[in-house]
């Protein structure tokens, strides 16, 4: 076996949010208030299924069956899997067919693709457990590796994942943290103990029964990942057109133990349309890799191989993510409306949990999906330079308008369910 070359680790993110309806103040408190745009969500799901999920899964199945040394990993959000049931059972079946090859690893994430890790650890661990249960039920394997929404990561989060019993966690190989080190190497977070309060919360929800002693960090090689995900069809890019043998040359030159190629699954057919040749590119990779003796392995396999080696410390005091050039939280939490929306949402947590109403709890959680806050981003929203946005709404303000109405409605319902604790006791109040 040649092991001078790094292995390849492919992980694809699969997610669709529940987009909000054009809610109005007049709807708040009405009998049949529906927050989410059933019609639009169905239409988008089915469009992306035709362009991406179905053809990509078909190709992936063919590749997994043809090439023994080719494996991949997926992280599929709970809200996506729900939408499969609602809008496209054939999509779910095609993922299940991939699972049956035994060469696909499924990762853990928050069920609602949420920002809960930023606001409530209790809520966060519940969502991760619920997701692990769903993955086990649908795909017959309990996830061993965790990836947080949009690759949001911090030292603390890594230890929370460790306490929850995960072997590994994914993160962005951000330059400012790597300081020139190779993202392909083995990493671990700096060791420290979490505050007792957090440990206690995590212990209540442990998808794997026991905490791990150590946790590995797999870092995204963002240059090579983005060559495919963002630059593949960019005619102004010096690497255009990207050929699979050139790309393989680049992979082989990068050294380390594993080149981690993390990207949205929608890269194939949706972000990069079929006519860009993206499917042909993907099809030709395993063949070249086989010829050159390179293996594509799963995150768990990468970690098992790295266990024998000394791991370097990946130190992230503040949050990193894979979003935008800033690679921080600014895509979701930069401006006033984004912060107010998330704060107001989590201010309802005690009320939601006290109410014990399943439907309202589910709706509250669906509002935690990161996309809602992404749509409110105004970072590039300069006049005269109106940023082309991947948003279903006209503007960040429209996103906030809809969200705030949903939140008002939810608050109204919760307050009508729960007797106010502050209500003065008539016995003691002045007449």
């Amino acid at each position, binding site marked *: 076996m040649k092991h001078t070359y790094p292995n390849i680790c492919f992980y694809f993110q699969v997610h669709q949010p529940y987009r909000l309806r054009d809610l109005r103040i007049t709807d708040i408190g009405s009998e049949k208030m529906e927050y989410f745009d059933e019609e639009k969500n169905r239409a988008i799901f089915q469009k992306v299924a035709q362009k991406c999920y179905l053809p990509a899964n078909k190709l992936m199945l063919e590749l997994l069956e043809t090439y023994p040394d080719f494996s991949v990993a997926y992280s599929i959000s709970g809200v996506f899997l729900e939408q499969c049931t609602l809008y496209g059972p054939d999509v779910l079946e095609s993922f299940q067919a991939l699972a049956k090859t035994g060469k696909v690893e499924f990762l853990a994430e928050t069920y609602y693709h949420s920002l809960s890790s930023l606001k409530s650890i209790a809520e966060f661990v519940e969502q991760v457990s619920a997701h692990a249960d769903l993955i086990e039920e649908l795909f017959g394997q309990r996830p061993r590796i965790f990836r947080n929404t949009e690759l949001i990561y911090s030292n603390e989060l890594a230890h929370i994942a460790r306490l929850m019993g995960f072997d590994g966690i994914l993160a962005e190989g951000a330059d400012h943290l790597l300081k020139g080190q190779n993202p392909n190497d083995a990493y671990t977070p700096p060791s420290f103990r979490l505050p007792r309060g957090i440990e206690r919360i995590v212990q209540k929800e442990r998808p794997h029964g026991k905490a791990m002693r150590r946790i590995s960090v797999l870092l995204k090689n963002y240059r090579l990942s983005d060559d495919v995900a963002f630059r593949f069809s960019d005619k102004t890019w010096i690497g255009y057109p990207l050929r699979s043998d050139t790309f393989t040359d680049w992979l082989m030159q990068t050294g380390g133990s594993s080149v981690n190629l993390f990207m949205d699954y929608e890269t194939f057919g949706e972000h990069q349309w079929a006519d860009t040749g993206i499917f042909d590119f993907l099809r030709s990779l395993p063949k070249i890799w086989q010829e050159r003796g390179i293996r594509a392995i799963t995150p768990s396999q990468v970690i098992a191989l790295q266990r024998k080696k000394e791991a370097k410390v990946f130190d992230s005091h503040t949050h990193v993510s894979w979003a935008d050039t800033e690679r921080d939280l600014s895509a979701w939490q930069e401006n006033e*409306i984004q912060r107010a929306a998330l704060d107001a949402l989590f201010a309802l947590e005690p009320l939601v949990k006290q109410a014990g109403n399943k439907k309202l709890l589910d709706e509250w959680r669906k509002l935690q999906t990161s996309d809602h806050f992404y749509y409110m981003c105004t970072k590039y*929203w300069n*006049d*005269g330079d109106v940023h082309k946005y991947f948003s279903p709404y006209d*503007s960040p303000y429209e996103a906030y308008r809809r969200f705030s109405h949903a939140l008002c409605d939810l608050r109204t319902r919760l307050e009508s369910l729960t007797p106010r604790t502050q209500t003065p006791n008539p016995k003691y109040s002045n007449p």
Partner: protein
Amino acid sequence: MSIHTLMFGWEYPPLHLGGLGVACQGLVQGLLKNGVHVTLVLPHPHAQSEEHDVISPKEHRIRTVKVQSMLNPYMTTDQYFQQINAVSKEMQQVYGSDLPQAVTHFTEVSVELTKHTSPDVVHCHDWMTYGAGIRAAKYHRKPLITHIHATELDRTNFHPDEWIYGLERQGFQAADRIVAVSNYTKNILVEHYGIDPAKIMVVHNGSSEEHLRAPQKLTSLCGRKHAPMVLFLGRLTLQKGPIQFLEMANKVRRFRPDTQFIMAGEGGMMGEIVQKVRELNLQENVALAGKVSSAEARKLYRKADCFVMPSLSEPFGLVALEAIAHGTPVVISKQSGVSEVVGHGFKVDFWDTDKMADCVLTILREQPLANQLRTAAPRSLQYLRWENQAKHVRSIYEKLIR
């Protein structure tokens, strides 16, 4: 390269009724800053009088030529007729006894008075000056730029006076380049006047320096202890959507009964508006402020919690920029040019008064939203300085001269 532009305008502060005068002034000042010499020809009811503001008197690169005339840009043939009948027969000879005559008179006199100038380009603003522009360009054998601030279709909700429409079309056809104040207006020229889009350049209006220095609201005033106030500012004509404003007000009032709606401006629809207020039983909520001075307008902007511009067809809509400059969140019609440059605000179809009301109510209810609009929107005005917009106009001149 030194460039001299012979410019035909038709209103100019302080003698102005609407956005055209403000835009002309901004453009002229911007051109001066870009080193362009300007000869400005203006209609003036008292051409001999000296009280007229000559922009910046110390400026050597500008000369103004005043032409005695009663023209104003928002005039209809009927209105001109009423006004001209109020002056002596003698003076009627000077002004022109009806609108076409007045325009002919203005054209002849203004071309005559500028024969001695030697411009590099001729630049004219809106239909009343197109005739003068065409003739002056021919006389001096120089390129013609027709600037379009508002078409007859905008003013009449697409029921034009054919004579005015015809003059506009002639101006567009004769022009070497057309400057439109928005893509919205460019599309109207292409679709309704059959003009080649390649000939039309879009230069959005700018935000004046004065706006950039406008005092912001004090945050202490934003604490919503007073009843919320929603502002309309514009001529009370069909084009500006005052009826849509009242329909919106009626819907907002249902949820926020204490909301005050102030309508500033005057115009032909006053009677209809008063009646509509009564019909909707909005007397307690709506105040008609009449025509307001710039100082009063500034006060209103600062006091308002939300500014609504529900125009049916608005080539640009400078009032929206003024509101933004004063830190007022805006809800503006999608059928407007200014919506192309305002990112931080709500945009709605003028007929969708349900959604308009919903946006206003959201701004009134959501403090973080109001705060963000208040701070983010004014910051974006710096991209729209007149100096910068005039630079685009200068480069259009340069390409034509070469």
